[in-house]
Structure formats: structure tokens, C-alpha cells
């Protein structure tokens, strides 16, 4: 059982470069989320999706974009990387928003230099 799979696990970007963080889940979950976690801190919601074709901003969406063309995939795009985007990024999914467990990927550690 794969669960939530994130790629890549590690990446170093130069300022101004672009990249896409991939996230896929095989649990047929409607809800998917992207969070960032700075060292020693909690998780801040970047974007979320309640189903294919539907996305919405979270607490810290600036500098990021998402799309949800299928139930399984929820990629996160960084267009012009900045040092402030150095963080660990977690993708998660859940069947619904209420009373159910959110399953997390193992994270992508991104460094922008």
C-alpha cells in the first residue's frame, strides 16, 4: 500500500528557478493538502483541494500554485524560488474533512540558495 507518495525527497534550487513537487495518493481520497514546515515548527497550509478541478488557498499561498486534474495527483508548483521558500513540504490526503485521518507523505526537503 503506497498511501501518499511525494517526489522528490530532496532538492536544491537556485533563486529564481522553478520546480514542481509531485504528490500522488492511491486511496481514492477527495481531500488533498499541501503544507510547509519550517524547522521546529508546526505545519502551515499552502493550498488544498476538495476534489478534482477544485482548489483553494490556505494560510500561506503566495509564491505557489497548484492544480488537481485527477483525484490521485496534486502537484505544487514554485515559479520563482526564493530563499524564504526553503522548508520541508508535506502533502496529505483524507477521505473527508470531518472526523477522518489525514495521511501524510514523507515530505520534500527543499533548499533555495
Amino acid at each position, binding site marked *: 500500500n503506497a498511501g501518499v507518495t511525494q517526489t522528490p525527497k530532496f532538492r536544491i534550487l537556485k533563486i529564481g528557478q522553478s520546480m514542481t513537487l509531485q504528490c500522488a495518493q492511491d486511496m481514492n481520497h477527495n481531500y488533498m493538502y499541501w503544507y510547509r514546515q519550517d524547522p521546529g515548527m*508546526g505545519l502551515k*497550509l499552502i493550498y*488544498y483541494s476538495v476534489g478534482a478541478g477544485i482548489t*483553494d488557498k490556505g494560510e500561506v499561498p503566495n509564491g505557489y500554485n497548484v492544480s488537481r486534474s485527477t483525484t490521485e495527483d496534486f502537484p505544487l508548483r514554485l515559479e520563482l524560488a526564493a530563499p524564504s521558500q526553503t522548508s520541508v513540504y*508535506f502533502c496529505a490526503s*483524507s477521505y473527508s474533512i470531518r*472526523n477522518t485521518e489525514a495521511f501524510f507523505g514523507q515530505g520534500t526537503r527543499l533548499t533555495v540558495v
Partner: protein
Amino acid sequence: TQLLEQSPQFLSIQEGENLTVYCNSSSVFSSLQWYRQEPGEGPVLLVTVVTGGEVKKLKRLTFQFGDARKDSSLHITAAQPGDTGLYLCAGAKAGNMLTFGGGTRLMVKP
């Protein structure tokens, strides 16, 4: 400003001690979850509380949801080194956002 405030942020205790971690908000949540995160891993769900005043026990861990569904606590009895980790509370808000508190980093020394 975090929607969910956790306290304390850091806690270092000796094996065998008891501790309580708090998760507070001015907002009402339909449910509240507690997760534990190990280094290099994503958070893993410990428990979900749904009803105001609800108490759930998971071995030495006791979770309580406030009567008004705005706050929650996690109490650990006789802490063990294996309890070391980052404890996160998370609440579901209107608009389908699952938001997390800032976390409590617990270290239990042998």
C-alpha cells in the same frame, strides 16, 4: 498568528514524569485531531475527538476535547523515551481547511 495555539512549545522531562500539552483557539471546531511526528517523517494520527467534553485514552495518553470545542489537551502519564517527538493538534474549520497548531516538541530523557 496561529489559529490553534499550542503550549508549551518545548518540554524536556525525565522518564516517569507526567505532562500535559494544551491546544487552544478562539474558534469552534467540528473535530480536533492530535498527531505525533518523528524526525524525517510525516505526522501520524494519534486520535480524533469530536464531541465537546469527550475524553479518549490511548494507553498512557489521555486526550480531552473542551466542552465548547475550542480547546483540547493531551496528558501523558509516566512518560517514556519512546514518547519523544513533535505533538501537533489539528482542527477542521469551515471551508474545509485542516489547520495545525505550532506543535509541542517533547523530549523524554532516560
